[in-house]
């Protein structure tokens, strides 16, 4: 069935879902987006898995499992931030004005965009985990896989909000460099590329305020069967609240400009 004959949902929920699906579909059509958020973390993981096969970390977790969580987080953060940042493009090209001439309410637009940011993280997460289970030789029970995946996925909420903040604060010209710097900066500082323990002492302190550090911490902890670490949850929730407040401010400011 083509889109032409698809039934048109009349409710706001239907509209929100429909818009979220279109946005998700267009995100996947963006080649740069796929390379950056899916192919790159997957390739890096395969490379690392090959290098560190059979080695264990100090905590007893295999290095490959450790890196699997790091690379999945890396890819997912990129997907979440980049998707939100696309809002800047939709905003400045005038598409949002057009969208305001529909029955889709403004908050539904925000919900749809946040949902898209969360949805587009799934390929990176799932593919890196599959690579971990097969090539990486990471053996977990089905429940452990599910719990770890869910922990990482829910831990991405502050990053989805961060993407929207960039999308509402940035302009077409600034949004690409800002989201790239934020994405790579958080990934490196949060210890997703190199373990934080290898950082100089002062950088280790910096790392421990980044949401990316706590995202990976959350994922590894659940994977190792140590349960959900309260500090990680608090830090990620804190980031979500702070970014949410900044986001509301950026959103209302951007509305006045339109």
């Amino acid at each position, binding site marked *: 069935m083509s889109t032409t004959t698809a039934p048109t949902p009349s409710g706001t929920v239907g509209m929100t879902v429909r818009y979220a699906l279109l946005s998700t579909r267009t995100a996947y059509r963006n080649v740069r987006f796929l390379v950056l958020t899916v192919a790159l973390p997957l390739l890096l993981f395969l490379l690392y898995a090959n290098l560190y096969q059979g080695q264990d970390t100090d905590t007893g977790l295999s290095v490959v499992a450790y890196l699997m969580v790091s690379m999945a987080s890396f890819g997912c953060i990129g997907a979440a931030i980049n998707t939100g940042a696309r809002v800047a493009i*939709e905003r400045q090209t005038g598409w949002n004005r*057009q969208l305001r001439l*529909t029955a889709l309410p403004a908050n539904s637009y925000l919900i749809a965009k946040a949902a898209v940011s969360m949805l587009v993280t799934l390929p990176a997460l799932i593919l890196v985990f599959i690579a971990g289970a097969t090539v990486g030789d990471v053996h977990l029970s089905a429940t452990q896989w599910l719990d770890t995946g869910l922990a990482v996925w829910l831990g991405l909420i502050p990053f989805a909000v961060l993407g929207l903040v960039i999308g509402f604060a940035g302009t077409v010209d600034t949004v690409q460099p800002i989201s790239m710097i934020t994405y790579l900066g958080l990934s490196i500082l949060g210890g997703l590329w190199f373990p934080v323990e290898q950082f100089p002492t002062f950088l280790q302190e910096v790392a421990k305020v980044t949401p990316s550090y706590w995202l990976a911490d959350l994922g590894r902890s659940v994977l190792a069967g140590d349960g959900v670490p309260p500090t990680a949850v608090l830090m990620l929730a804190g980031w979500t609240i702070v970014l949410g407040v900044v986001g509301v401010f950026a959103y209302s400011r951007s509305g006045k400009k339109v």
Partner: protein
Amino acid sequence: MLNTSSPADPAAAPDGAAIRMTGLRKSFGPIQAVRGVDLDIAPGEVVAFLGPNGAGKSTTIDMLLGLTRPDAGSVSVFGDSPVRAVQAGRVGAMLQGGALLPDVTVRELVGVFAALHRHPMPVQRAMELAGVTDIAGQKTTKLSGGQSQRVRYALALVPDPDLLVLDEPTVAMDVEVRRAFWASMREYTRSGRTVLFATHYLDEADAFADRVVVLANGVIVADGTGAQIKASVAGRTISAVIPGAGMDAVAGLPGVVSVEQQASRILLHCNDSDTALRAMLAGFPAAHDIEIAAGNLEDAFLELTAASRQESNR
């Protein structure tokens, strides 16, 4: 008489007006874009909003669509607030400029736009009316300027609106496409829909609208049929040597819109040259070397808007 259900907003009175603007004002910093617009449009009217760039057309349209809040005054669409009318799917609009959503095909774009409305027309029909069926499979980023405009027209049609608002719809269209566009619009409005379109072409306004509203410097300076507007703006110019006459005295003559000094001659731009001539001869019997010329339409139009600019600077 006030509407008791919303006494704070007399414009919302359900008296059947498609559009009602009352004392509409909007400033951007020190710039007064709209300086008090009052306008009623009845259902089924096809109205042209005519004015030069910067006249306040787009700002007024933005307020009409609920995209911008007026600083003062009120606007209602079918007796309701603009936002509510838009959400009810009663308004379709073609906005000026702006890119279309990237990375989607024309069909997908029109399709999703239909899905975001309460009672859309079939996507295929909207695409046929707008003449975009041949480019339905193309990505929006690959379209020419004229093609993009037609896609925007399809987006305006797909809500199946009672009111169609078009902000400079034929910009970037070549002559042939422009003609096809107006033919299609005519076809669509035959069913009694209301249309408001902005343009800065007097000919376009005259040819396609039942009523022409001229906007200059944020106020309405003329309102009537195309023929009436032409008659009033395309006035005649009296040129004469008038010894001893002050410019202000000449400008105050009946039928005179504006005056200017040109060497020894004074030019009187008139909207009623017969009355002006009689008054001039009565008031200044020494006037000689009198010539009367029919004004050029575009010049006269500029004259009209320039006159209002002087007034606004006072």
